[in-house]
């Protein structure tokens, strides 16, 4: 493959359209290389975010041929078909310009989630005893690079635009890593139900499918959190036990 045709969405908040660019390819080209080449040679002001170009920072999220992908980890030969390759911004967030979207809402949601609070240290030097099996599960969640592709694909956000009531998969993964941190004494169960809207997730697993870090978002993060919410809020025995012995939860 010597060259490829790209249709790149150009525009801003007022609107825009796809523009066609012909790009000469080098071996191993990823979509981000093609975007950079367009930027350097044909359209200096083509806006896109990127940092590491190695799938570690989660900046270059976009929709390639309609699928949410990291442009730096998407090889052109893997997405090239008969027609042109389309590249457009994530559709769940408001566009700023070209491929750049306003993702600031994600940062606001995260700041609203109860922060991690450690228990008293186990050792005199201020450290804790934790075994590898204690940290394995939350370590999976901490692989998250905050590319927000899971947010982009989640239909609760994408189709129903419930940004006010639903935190989205990224933030359930974030809450899960704090909840499952062996030394954390915080409790986010009530918040997950009342503010973060975890009940709206109907586990279609779209988020898990697009995660470039292969985090098992639905099975390992969301479902266990849902179970905690259900146990706390709807289990009559647990409710009775709390009434007698005390403890956190809702009445």
């Amino acid at each position, binding site marked *: 493959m010597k060259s490829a045709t790209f249709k790149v969405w150009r525009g*801003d908040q007022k609107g825009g359209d796809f523009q066609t660019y012909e790009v000469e390819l*080098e*071996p*191993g*080209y*990823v979509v981000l*290389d093609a975007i950079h080449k367009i*930027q*350097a*040679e044909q359209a*200096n*002001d*083509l*806006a*896109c*975010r*990127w*940092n*590491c*170009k*190695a*799938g*570690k*920072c989660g*900046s270059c999220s976009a929709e390639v041929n309609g699928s949410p992908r990291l442009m730096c*980890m998407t*090889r052109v030969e893997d997405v090239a078909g008969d027609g042109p390759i389309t590249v457009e911004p994530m559709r769940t967030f408001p566009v*700023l*310009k*070209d491929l*750049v979207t306003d*993702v*600031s809402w994600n*940062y606001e949601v*995260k*700041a609203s989630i109860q*922060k*991690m609070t*450690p228990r008293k*240290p186990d050792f005199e*030097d*201020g*450290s*804790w*005893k*934790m*075994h*590898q099996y*204690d*940290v394995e599960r*939350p*370590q999976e969640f*901490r*692989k*998250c*690079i905050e590319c927000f592709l899971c947010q982009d694909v989640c239909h609760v956000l994408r189709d129903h635009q419930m940004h006010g009531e639903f935190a989205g998969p990224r933030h359930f993964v974030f809450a899960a*890593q704090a909840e499952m*941190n062996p*030394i*954390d004494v915080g409790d986010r169960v009530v918040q997950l139900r009342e503010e973060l809207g975890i009940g709206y997730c109907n586990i279609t697993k779209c988020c898990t499918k697009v995660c470039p870090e292969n985090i098992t978002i639905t099975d390992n993060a969301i479902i266990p959190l849902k179970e905690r919410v259900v146990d706390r809020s709807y289990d009559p025995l647990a409710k009775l036990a709390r009434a007698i012995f005390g403890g956190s939860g809702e009445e």
Partner: protein
Amino acid sequence: MSQYQEFEHDVLVIGAGGAGLRAAIEAAAAGVRVGLVCKSLLGKAHTVMAEGGMAASMGNVDERDGWQTHFADTMRGGQYLNSWRMAELHAKESPERARELEAWGALFDRTPDGKILQRNFGGHKYPRLAHVGDRTGLEMIRTLQDHGIHQGIDVHMEVTVTRLLKDGDRCVGAFGYDREQGRFRVFKAKAVVLATGGLGRAYLVTSNSWEGTGDGHSLGYHAGAELRDMEFIQFHPTGMIWPPSVRGILVTEGVRGEGGILKNNEGTRFMFDDIPPLYVDQTADTPEEGWRYVTGDRDARRPPELLTRDHVARKIVKEVQEGRGSPHGGAFLDIAWIKEHIKDSEAHIKKKLPSMYHQFKELAGIDITKEPMEVGPTTHYAMGGIAVDPDTQMTTTVPGLFAAGEVAGGLHGANRLGGNSLSDLVVFGQRAGEHAARFAKENPSYSVSEAEIEGAAVEALAPLERGATQVGPFQLQFELQTMMQNKVGIAREEKALSEALGTIRQIAEQLAEVGSGGNRWYNPGWHTALDMKHLLTVSEAIAISARERKESRGAHSRLDHPEKDAAWSTFNHIVRKGADGEMVIERRDIPPIRQELQDIIEEEG
């Protein structure tokens, strides 16, 4: 007059990687109002790319380790051009900084008895690097970010600073623009911390992201700060080299720490050929001893693949030059071979090096559990940087201006040990934050000049007002990077360095004519034109310092002066802006080391 938005903070931190975040957290804890400016979104800074780990002599895996050994290793690695005081503070304080990260949510890999696990790394005598697989940098930046957002810090995302503001000698703020709409911003502050990271984008083949354009080095320099040791640029020995699209992307030293070996196209493990005198006693004699070392035998010595980065990089270049390179001009890095020793090696490699597995699988179509990788040197790190007071991190010449992390010079001397960067960020980030807050409290009054703001605004708008030009900003950047790669790269000589300085001046003249099309909204062409000033400044500082140092030491190799010369071991090169605006270079003697530290160096051998 130009329009701008104005912000006022007690302490302004420029840069939000590990050092900037740590500085901001510390300053906020001291009770002052803190602003944090990041060029990208929060949490995307280059710290996320760090892989191998954070050096801290906790002694969890080998109790013989302690700050003294870490100090001596750092000094030896830096060929004794380091600031010994910074090396001392760094070795003493990094364990506490590592444990503090755990309190803030970091989850490092564990030892069997439930402590933070530590791994072997080049130049470190004992297993010392706290790590999480090969994504330690991500763990660190995310921990600092998630803790930082609850400390009342004002974060300015996607804002680029183009100039520092002065009140007399003192630094009192910064001028910049937001990427989103190109609106100007003026930050007024009682103290400013530069934590802008590195300058790898001055070169064509680099592990650095677009952000690494030496902004802080250049902002500091133009504001009157001194730069030191700028000739020392670390070329990391193992970057990806094929396909071209991935050239330069880092392959962690952790691959070698886990037993990976380097071979040439004849299948020879060439690192055994030539061991530097400083390290002969610490290096394994046989592959068998090397393997015992990486698997934790305390009596074994490290394999030669874990010698310092400068040496390994030069050895790879030599193999290529002498016709024994890999097909695409590098060496073979083989981790798959450990199947000879480990039963379930495939799962082991995926567990220990998950992102390397991922990176080669997706980008190069290589399964590293089965085949060797092709690797070669990539521009990775600037040892040199802004000259600071070792205890406070305040610049030597500009009151109120501090620097921490890669942008500051001194800790690493002529060569940095792997793992000493992540610890550098938090040790000196903390110190810079603490002392910047103190300076702000002690020096509350200052004024900012409108004329200076107007000057900065005119300068920032110039490329846009010129409109699109025949030669655009990206072409000019490419021209500079190509030249730096060829003439100021891993092997240097007088003639090429002089030519480089000529080309830098010529490109600077061209830059004055270069413009970009489009408008002020998120315009990468315009942004690149503005970044070019910084790239040119750091390129000149590197080339001038490299031409001046007529010996080979650490990361600096001169073909015309191939030997290390003791006469060059007593001073550092200092670069500053002269009275007439020209770059001036001078020698500054290294202050005499404290006797107890000298004793440690001699005892540790």
